[in-house]
């Protein structure tokens, strides 16, 4: 997990993400990895989690993909699900569940992130982008 954080920060810095956003990148990528690990552990899966870094003209994008069944049903075309905004991320202590908490952290750091259906039935992919300033 520490390695994922370090690699994400280094990749973001090289991509030109501004220094003040690097902590957010580190935390968001770690959070997405934690979420994926929890999903794999729950499913008893030993398949690796996939973390992908991509640069395009304007953005540095990190995708964290799990490969287990889950709550998002990828029937039909690839549906995208935007996470809760920071305003919506109030916690109901009686109902707090790890996945909701995880997505609340990610949403608080990156309001525009997406949780997409993954490449296999039931799997998910958290896609997060930050602007490149250089």
């Amino acid at each position, binding site marked *: *997990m*520490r390695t994922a*954080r370090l690699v994400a920060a280094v990749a973001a810095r090289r991509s030109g993400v501004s220094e003040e956003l690097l*902590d957010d990148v580190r*935390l968001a990528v*770690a*959070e997405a990895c*934690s*979420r994926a*690990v*929890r999903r794999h*552990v729950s499913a008893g899966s030993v398949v690796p989690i996939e973390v992908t870094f991509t640069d395009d003209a304007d953005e540095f994008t990190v995708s964290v993909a799990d490969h287990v069944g889950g709550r998002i049903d990828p029937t039909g075309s690839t549906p995208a699900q935007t996470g809760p905004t*920071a305003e919506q*991320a*109030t*916690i109901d*202590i*009686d109902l*707090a569940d*790890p996945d909701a*908490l*995880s997505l*609340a*952290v990610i*949403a*608080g*750091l990156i309001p525009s992130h997406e949780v997409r259906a993954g490449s296999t039935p039931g799997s998910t992919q958290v896609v997060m982008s930050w602007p490149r300033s250089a």
Partner: protein
Amino acid sequence: MDLSLTTREEAGFTVVAPSGEVDVFTAPALDEALEPLTSQPSPQVIVDLTGVDFLDSSGLGVLVKALKRVRDHEGTLRLVVTSDRIAKVFKVTGLDAVIPLHATLADAFAATH
């Protein structure tokens, strides 16, 4: 994978001080430490996160569970958070409004809520 924990009694509180990283792999150790402490009648517990350099939702989940137990047993749970990086995790989820964060242990002892 590295998290160490100390527990001590001070000023009428049980002070739990984890040190290291609280993530999906290490959070269960914190949960195990807090479970008995927060399940007693009227528990008075402070979790001092000063020595924690990383905390994600796994840690938040453990603290939310601890808070629920504390409330069920009519006790108190306070947190000491000195790092902006750690405080941010509570702020972006709105949990700082649910679990009181204090900048120092002295503040946590002196708090009235």
